[in-house]
């Protein structure tokens, strides 16, 4: 029906950049170690090789763009692509699970969007089809066809042939969740991302030890620093603070303007400051809800809410568990979930574990800490004794884990709660659970305890909620509940 279309030329740039990015690490290694000791004519080799490589990549990007065409025909999105191997991919509109709209910096410069199309079978390493750069109107057109097919079962010919006039539409938006800036900053400041950035920075600077003459740099003030441990401490503190700020800023950029809208039976999530992202999920594909409270947020009364979702590809980890509410006051979760996914009941009485399982939680922690502390204390005489400090820490951690665990059954809903570092509450609907496991170790058997886990589909693989050491009777009750099928 509609003729074949090319993507916007920006797609060529984008794929070239992607290629260069992928090749960056080998290239850097090549520069650093490649022509190290060679002199004479070959010394200049790398200065020629690298521009050649980059030119090749750009050329490939352009070819890739030239060969990529798509069209909408006979109820299918038909994509033909590939420079050396021609690939034709036809996706039926009714098979599409979700549309993921991203506006990267590059796309935003030209008023374009990147559209990812996902079907249930996206078990490969990437989305089923990615249109790297198309105009907003074009994305809107595809989006509308997708929605029409979902509701009517076939494509209205009008939508297929006509270009839409203007972008505004009458959509029925029932409820909205908007992340306030205050909460955005709290979220960024309390996320665990800091550790990642810091260890990353450490590794990074470690890598360059050979190139940057640290020793020469530092011997100068080594004399000076030797006197003051305080000086080093201050540097470390500032380093940490810097890493923390970077991590926070990164999260703010990523999750700014976080908005969730409910549109009939779909949830539309959009976020991002520099790179704007919009994701549409049909409600019936939601497999479970997960509420996470990390150690810093819990005392402040905040939690994050995720939805486990059956679409999405493996590598794209973000797409299989999607943040629904990045940061929300705990008491508000119930109300918001009721608006968005009314099936789920959040505020229920969670049954705690029996007292005797506390012993087992303690035991498991001590099993690691005591030998470790003993070895440390023995080997590193004066300072090793510091490791004894881990004992009270471990004990309180075990207590928190014990207190964090619990379960509940309400109607057709199972709630499993546990803590490792963050407290995780999984809320399952019976009809979404793929399997239930129970485990009994000899020790548990003696204490009449058991562990239970339930598995749902998330992305292409499984995702399990688990409670360790609950009353054996309760474990049986959960299994019986799962047995009962409504007939």
């Amino acid at each position, binding site marked *: 029906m509609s003729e074949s279309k090319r993507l916007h030329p920006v797609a060529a740039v984008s794929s070239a950049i992607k290629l260069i990015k992928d090749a960056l690490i080998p290239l850097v290694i090549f520069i650093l170690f490649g022509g190290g000791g060679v002199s004479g004519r070959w010394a200049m080799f790398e200065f020629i090789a690298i521009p050649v490589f980059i030119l090749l990549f750009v050329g490939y990007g352009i070819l890739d763009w030239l060969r990529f065409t798509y069209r909408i025909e006979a109820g299918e999105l038909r994509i033909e692509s590939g420079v050396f191997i021609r690939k034709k991919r036809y996706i039926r509109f009714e098979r599409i699970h979700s549309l993921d709209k991203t506006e990267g910096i590059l796309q935003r410069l030209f008023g374009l969007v990147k559209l990812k199309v996902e079907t249930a079978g996206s078990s490969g390493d990437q989305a089923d089809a990615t249109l790297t750069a198309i105009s907003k109107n074009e994305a809107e057109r595809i989006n509308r066809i997708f929605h029409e097919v979902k509701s009517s079962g076939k494509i209205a010919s009008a939508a297929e042939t006509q270009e839409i006039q203007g972008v505004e539409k009458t959509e029925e938006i029932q409820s909205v969740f908007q992340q306030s800036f205050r909460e955005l900053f709290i979220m960024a400041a309390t996320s665990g991302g800091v550790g990642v950035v810091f260890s990353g920075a450490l590794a990074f600077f470690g890598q360059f030890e050979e190139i940057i003459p640290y020793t020469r740099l530092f011997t100068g003030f080594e004399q000076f620093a030797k006197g003051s441990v305080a000086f080093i401490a201050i540097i470390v503190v500032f380093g940490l603070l810097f890493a923390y700020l970077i991590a926070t800023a990164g999260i703010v950029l990523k999750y700014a303007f976080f908005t969730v809208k409910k549109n009939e039976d779909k949830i539309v999530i959009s976020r991002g400051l520099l790179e704007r992202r919009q994701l549409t999920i049909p409600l*019936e594909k939601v497999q479970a809800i997960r509420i996470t409270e990390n150690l810093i947020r819990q005392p402040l009364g905040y939690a994050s809410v995720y939805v486990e979702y*059956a679409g999405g590809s493996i590598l794209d980890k973000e797409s299989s568990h999607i943040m629904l509410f990045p940061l929300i006051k705990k008491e508000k979760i119930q109300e918001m979930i009721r608006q968005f996914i009314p099936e789920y009941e959040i505020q229920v009485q969670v049954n705690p574990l029996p007292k005797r399982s506390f012993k087992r939680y303690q035991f498991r922690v001590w099993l690691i800490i005591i030998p470790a502390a003993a070895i440390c204390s023995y080997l590193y005489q004066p300072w090793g004794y510091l490791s004894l400090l881990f004992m009270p820490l471990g004990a309180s951690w075990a207590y928190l884990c014990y207190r964090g665990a619990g379960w509940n059954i309400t109607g057709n809903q199972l709630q499993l709660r546990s803590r490792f570092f963050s407290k995780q509450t999984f809320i399952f609907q019976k*009809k979404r*659970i*793929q*399997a*239930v*496991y*129970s*485990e*009994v*170790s*000899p020790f548990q*058997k003696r204490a009449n305890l058991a562990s239970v886990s339930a*598995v*749902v*589909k*998330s992305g292409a*693989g*499984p*995702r399990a909620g688990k409670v360790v050491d609950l009353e054996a009777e309760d474990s*049986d009750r959960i*299994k*019986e509940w*799962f*047995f009962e*099928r409504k007939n």
Partner: protein
Amino acid sequence: MTPQKHISEKALKVWRLTGLFISIACWAVMIAAVVVILIFDWPLWLAVGIGLLAMFFAYIAIYLVPLIRWKRWRYDVRETEIEIQSGLLIIKRTLVPMVRVQHVDTKHGPLLRKYGLASVEISTAATIHEIPALDISEADNLRFYISKMASVVEEDV
């Protein structure tokens, strides 16, 4: 509520054979160690210790583990659900509703085939469950039964 059906008794033989193969590989390493000990005139008790260890290991791998595993392995395939029990020390029980079953496979490697056995693999959208070592005819029947039951009870995923 414990599942009742045992898997084929021949499974025990197959597992013992597997245990034997593993033991032989271990013995090879241990014999090499003993030879080294003798060559370098290290204390003899080391060699004796290794020998005892090898015997102990063989006892566990060939006798004990297969036996316990076989005793633990139970399964039940009912109209609406499949229940599987497995484990050595930790007893694991799995419950899979028929409606969740997406497909069933039977398969057998050379060792299982020699004893006329096959294992049944039950796949849901997210998990795979295995019943190892059933008689081939039983495995085939089970496959047919499960796929029939799974298509009877239809529910939206």
